[in-house]
């Protein structure tokens, strides 16, 4: 019965296209390694810990995944475009601090700060991209410099303006309630409270996937990452594409930064250091090639979900969380090896 149904549903294939089984098609996707890993991990934790599959626990896992996943969307696109960003972790905090400190110092409505934070986040991305294009230095160096500078600015300016290492509380200011509703509320789905960041995450993944697969810009992103010279030679605006990608990362940092701010109402200025690697790990586990030109936004999302499952699953299984980092490293290694095999198959055949 099911067989006949699938037969009638499948569209008439071009007679010149050799038939590939759905399994073969799946193997050709960048995120296949991550998908297999995610399924194995899910079954594993479901068996080990009965609480793992409870709706409440799944909502918590999804929330944890979304805080990595939102950034992983931008970072995945950037990596497909052939570049790195090491400043993402602190850029999230920069965005949150900008909104917080500006509206506190000038006692404006917090939405003014939120708007300014967006401008600052996009500017950080633009500056990263612009320096990269102008100097032709590797993005590793350029964004490492940005990372260090932002880390210093976060600490220095917060102490200078607020007089403390954490930003002052803005919970009583105008617009805080509405901003919290937008960036840090929960939505009840079937009796389970799901954080709004999960929906932002899904929306960003959907938009990024559409852009990659179905728009000209997506074609350009693959091209500038795969071979920037070839792309330029056929008329692709390589510089604009790369700068745009860094700005997209900035946009993601703004969303996550606003969530961090309005979920807790203060921001620790020293936070965020090290998170940039989590975003990169999510993208790499999800099948994005470090060298660019290959990958998917969905892969990055699966990578983030693996991270979320491992992070929370260890807690639900009542293990020592010390093992988490070991596990993450192992996943990264396995995922990178799978990616390498994929790339060799594509290039050397």
């Amino acid at each position, binding site marked *: 019965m099911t067989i006949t149904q699938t037969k009638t549903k499948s569209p008439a294939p*071009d007679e*010149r*296209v*050799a038939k590939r089984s759905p399994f073969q098609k799946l193997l050709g996707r960048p995120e296949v390694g991550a998908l297999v890993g995610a399924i194995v991990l899910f079954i594993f934790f479901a068996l080990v810990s009965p609480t793992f599959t409870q709706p409440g626990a799944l909502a918590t896992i999804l929330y944890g995944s979304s805080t990595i996943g939102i950034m992983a969307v931008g970072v995945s696109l950037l990596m497909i475009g052939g570049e790195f960003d090491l400043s993402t972790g602190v850029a999230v905090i920069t965005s949150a601090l900008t909104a917080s400190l500006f509206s506190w110092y000038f006692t404006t409505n917090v939405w003014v700060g939120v708007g300014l934070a967006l401008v600052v986040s996009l500017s950080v991305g633009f500056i990263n991209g612009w320096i990269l294009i102008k100097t032709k230095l590797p993005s590793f160096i350029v964004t490492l410099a940005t990372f260090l500078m932002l880390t210093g600015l976060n600490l220095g300016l917060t102490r200078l303006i607020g007089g403390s290492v954490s930003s002052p509380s803005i919970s009583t200011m105008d617009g805080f309630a509405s901003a919290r509703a937008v960036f840090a509320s929960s939505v009840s789905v079937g009796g389970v409270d799901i954080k709004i960041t999960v929906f932002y995450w899904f929306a960003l993944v959907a938009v990024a996937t*559409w852009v990659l697969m*179905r*728009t*000209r810009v*997506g*074609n*350009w992103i*693959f*091209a500038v990452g*795969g*071979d920037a*010279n*070839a*792309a*330029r*030679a*056929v*008329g*692709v605006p390589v510089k604009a594409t790369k700068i745009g990608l860094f700005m997209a990362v900035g946009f993601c940092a703004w969303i996550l930064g606003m969530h961090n701010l309005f979920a807790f109402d203060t921001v620790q200025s020293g936070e965020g250091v090290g998170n940039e690697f989590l975003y990169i790990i999510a993208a790499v586990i999800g099948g994005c*090639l470090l060298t660019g*030109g*290959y990958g998917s936004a969905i892969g990055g999302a699966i990578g983030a979900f693996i991270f979320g499952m491992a992070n929370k699953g260890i807690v639900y299984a009542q293990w020592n969380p010390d093992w988490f980092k070991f596990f993450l490293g192992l996943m990264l290694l396995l995922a990178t090896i799978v990616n390498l095999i994929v*790339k060799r198959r*594509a*290039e050397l*055949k």
Partner: protein
Amino acid sequence: MNAKEIDQQTLLQNEKDPLTHTPVHLLSLDGVGKHYGNIIALSEVTMAVDNGRVTCVLGDNGAGKSTLIKIIAGLHQHDAGTLKIMGQERKFSSPRDALDVGIATVYQDLAVVPLMPIWRNFFLGSELTSGFGPFKSMDVEKMKDITLKELAAMGIDLRDVEQPIGQLSGGERQCVAIARAVYFGAKVLILDEPTAALGVKQSGVVLRYILQARDRGLGVIFITHNPHHAFPVGDRFLLLKRGKSIGYYDKKDITLDELTAQMAGGAELAELAHELEQLGGHSDVVKEVQGEVADVSQTTGKTYG
């Protein structure tokens, strides 16, 4: 040497376009030169490209072939002489500029992005879209169909345009790039050493596509260091050496042997034969070498270049 050179002074004034019979060349260079700092890469190059004609640019490594095509393709700007498109003087600031007036370039090494599917490569930079404003998306099915059809028209039998282009052979990749240029209405097609990295059979296939592009009315500029590839398909031959033109011939005025001898440089060839003689080579062998030196040097250039 009784090959008759084309008079470069009268070339650009008197010759008529073979199709429209108007006294205008599709593309013409007059005394074009280019220097990088104090290094003169190219000087005083004069040539013309017409519809349905193949102009071959021949020269050894470092002769200035790459510089010449980079100027025509818009990657570099010339700093002496004039470049005219249909009689209008132009200076391209980017490859996009050159593409917009119908000059398409197929590069030997950077023709395509290996990890991307064939259809994405085919339309790269000129994607078909449907929809409006921010919801403008690519017309994927149409693009795949056209890719398949255009490649079939060029005689490339592909099963799946979704496979990464890196999986195709070197010759097939060149052909995809040529088909792409033809489809996008190129008037001038520049081919940068399309046969350099290919075997004998694959080279033959690419040469056939060059003739097909010519028969479709394109002006083809074929860059090569192999006179054996250039002679069968070329209508005119521009020989470059150390950044200067050392000859510009019509096919009826030159033979393959003369072309080969010109390329290799008579004096150097003699010197090499002399050297081999001194090293104790048989006189037969030396004679043979004298004839084949050009080929051998090309073959090695091919392997390591």
